[in-house]
């Protein structure tokens, strides 16, 4: 079983992110359970969405406290919440932001963080700062859980025409933002 926790503000598309991710797993024959948790139920309020995946149907209905992966769609939430709470020893976090603007907490030896300018990528291709597909592209590269093709299949199911094209490009650039950094590190 793998568990993914998404931190965002209501209105930033975290539920779409969770169901896109779930759909990509679903297409591979894996059983996902994607679900939201609202706090104040108002746009802009911090909220979580979750994806729990397993080789058999997921029965566990609680929220996710010890995620394998974190997607932080809005890094300003990190000022008020410990978004890294419970992250697994070898957990991976993907944060939407730009280098110095993001303060990453002290990590454990095997934990990894990737900072992806997902809002900028989304503005470039989609015209709105909805960095979800760029974040998911980065997720594919950082975790190897899914290929970019798996993700694109889910994007094609969800979006059509120009929006589909734009999101596929955003996912691609999100993916490359991680593979590019990994190469730099290797060098």
């Amino acid at each position: 079983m793998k568990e993914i926790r998404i931190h965002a503000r209501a209105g930033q598309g975290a539920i779409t992110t969770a169901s896109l991710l779930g759909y990509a797993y679903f297409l591979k024959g894996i059983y996902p359970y994607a679900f939201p948790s609202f706090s104040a139920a108002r746009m802009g309020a911090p909220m979580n969405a979750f994806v729990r995946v397993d080789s058999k149907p997921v029965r566990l209905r609680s929220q996710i406290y010890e995620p394998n992966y974190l997607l932080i769609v809005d890094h300003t939430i990190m000022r008020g919440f410990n978004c890294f709470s419970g992250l697994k020893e070898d957990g991976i976090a993907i944060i939407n932001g730009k280098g110095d603007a993001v303060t990453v907490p002290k990590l454990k030896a095997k934990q990894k963080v990737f900072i992806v300018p997902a809002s900028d990528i989304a503005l470039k291709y989609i015209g709105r700062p909805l960095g979800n597909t760029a974040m998911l592209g980065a997720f594919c590269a950082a975790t190897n859980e899914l290929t970019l093709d798996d993700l694109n299949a889910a994007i094609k199911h969800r979006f059509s025409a120009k929006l589909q094209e734009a999101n596929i490009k955003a996912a691609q650039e999100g993916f490359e933002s991680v593979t590019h950094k990994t190469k730099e590190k290797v060098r």
Partner: protein
Amino acid sequence: MKEFLEGSQAIAEVIKLCRPGVISAYPITPQTHIVEGLAKMCADGELDSQFVNVESEHSAASVVLGAVATGVRAYTATSSQGLFYMAEVLYNISGMRLPVIMTVAARSISAPINIWNDHQDVVSLRDAGWIQLHAEDIQEAADLHLIAYRLGEDKTMMLPVMVCMDGFILTHGVETVNMPIQEEVDKFLPAYNPPYKLDVTNPMTLGPLVDPDYYMEARFALNETHKEALALIPKITAEFAKVFGRNYNGLIEGYQLNDAERVIVAMGSVCGTIKEVVDELKKKGKKVGLLKITSLRPFPAMHIYQALKNIPKVAVIDRALSIGSFAPLSAEVKAVFFGKPKRPKAVSSFIVGLGGRDITKDSIKEIFRLLTGKEKQGEFIDLKPELLKESYE
């Protein structure tokens, strides 16, 4: 066909396959997505059904009452305060023997205002004369609607059915659902053909004034029909299995009860979490199990007796209160054993997950742990003692 669907969307799709002639509802969180979905299908011409917009839940319930009274299949859905606003109409619907089918996206009750999941709304309406079925997951929620129409519209029943699914956890959760197809549904669920209806060429009165000479017999008959439903539900679920290949008992479901020494009794989505914990604890050699109650009304007392009579320790989880008394489900489960030759040594009662307080694996493990000690009465799990210290002064 396997699809990856939001719970609300799955329900809307299944209702569409049931071909209701009239749908009426007033939006309330977390029921909203279901009726939005159906309204869209009607507007797009995918569903040939009259969607009646109303100004309140009281009117929504009245519209579906009227529709079914004229011999038309109808559907509505609500939650929480909306269900309470319907209450007087709901008693009329069952009293007039009209098989309305309604989804309740189970949610807490104000005050304080809280939109999250528990069972206070549905459990409070347990005496309304409706059959009340509780779903564990989205698949079961979708399937129970098909079973509900077939059951309620059976000529020996003519009873309304409430299908309860946990708000957000199931209504807003997205998971893999095996969706039925129209041919299967048509095979299982024939067109609604009631033995009586309002008809200008053959006038009759439904729900008239009856004096003390007649009232008790009408209520007795309603109560008797609920008893008969206990026998009919497993027959209908057996037919359901033949058409759709999915097996439900429809009344109760035992999980790992064979050699169990400690068993939790529960309803709704928490049963999934309990099954996970049961599997984990069994691997460690603990003899634990679950008894899921699907049908709260009619209450399957004899089935519960048979399932639990040899279990030493039982815990009943309530996600609702009967303020000032015993927790409602626990009181009914205990009543099953009074005067019976066999019974558990202890039937403990726990209150869990009110107003969306998350129920974790640890919450369930704590209940199993507490079952090793003496009997507990209405013990709250996951309460925050620091909040109880806050005072008005």
